[in-house]
């Protein structure tokens, strides 16, 4: 459908088993962190981000936000795009179930509005968009497992139609202490 060199994946990031890999290399590791919360906050501090809203997010949004931060290390050019030129397409297996469960338990005492707003998986996309001022197309898919063929095809479609010039896409899944993130940044070639 398109010439093979029209776009390229300019960064990728994997976060699993308390390790963070960026473009294949180990960026951060914290085997002492027993809980996802501690691991996420450790990574947040390591990345030296100043974004206090981070602490208010649910674990899924935190993981998604951190993965995009890792993705954009050494890609200052991400800021050069117009807001509507960057899309975000994410997927996972458990939707927002991790927060759904905590919201349900909060209902026993008093329903928490701050938890309820995170009972949708695309709030994670919203948080990423707010942080980086991305306003391009975004979509959230729920799959049993990461379907790289599907999601790559979908994102290439967005690039083909010139709807976006760059797109963050991949998989961010959290359920209790199990988590997995695999994100990619694909960009149109600047040449």
């Amino acid at each position, binding site marked *: 459908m398109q010439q093979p060199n029209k776009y390229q994946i300019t960064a990728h990031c994997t976060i699993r088993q308390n390790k963070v890999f960026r473009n294949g290399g180990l960026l951060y590791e914290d085997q002492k962190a027993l809980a996802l919360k501690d691991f996420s906050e450790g990574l947040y501090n390591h990345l030296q981000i100043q974004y*206090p809203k981070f*602490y208010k997010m649910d674990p899924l949004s935190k993981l998604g936000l951190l993965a995009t931060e890792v993705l954009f290390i050494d890609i200052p050019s991400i800021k050069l795009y117009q807001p509507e030129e960057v899309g975000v397409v994410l997927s996972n297996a458990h939707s927002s179930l991790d927060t759904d469960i905590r919201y349900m338990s909060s209902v026993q005492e*008093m329903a928490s*509005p*701050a938890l309820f*707003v995170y009972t949708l998986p695309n709030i994670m996309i919203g948080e990423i968009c707010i942080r980086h001022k991305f306003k391009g197309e975004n979509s959230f898919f729920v799959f049993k497992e990461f379907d790289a063929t599907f999601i790559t095809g979908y994102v290439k479609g967005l690039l083909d139609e010139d709807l976006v010039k760059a797109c963050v896409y991949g998989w961010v899944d959290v359920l209790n202490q199990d988590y997995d993130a695999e994100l990619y940044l694909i960009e149109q070639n600047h040449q």
Partner: protein
Amino acid sequence: MDQLMANLKRQIIAQLNLKDLKPEDIGDDQPLFVEGIGLDSIDALELIVLLQQEYKIKLASAEDGPKVFYTVRTMAQYITDHQPA
């Protein structure tokens, strides 16, 4: 009143996950929302939950929020005025 305001600052930080703030960072008369501490509409709803859980005071309408939650002092005043007998 001072004790109440000190307690409120701790409770606000805990309820809203404001990990970057210490109680002494919040001024008694500093606006809590946009231009001050930077709280948003969801935070306002969480403050309503806080009033209900910690002080057994029910804010009937979200529209009263901006007035009641303007500063820590206005919150403390509201609590004092509405303390259940």
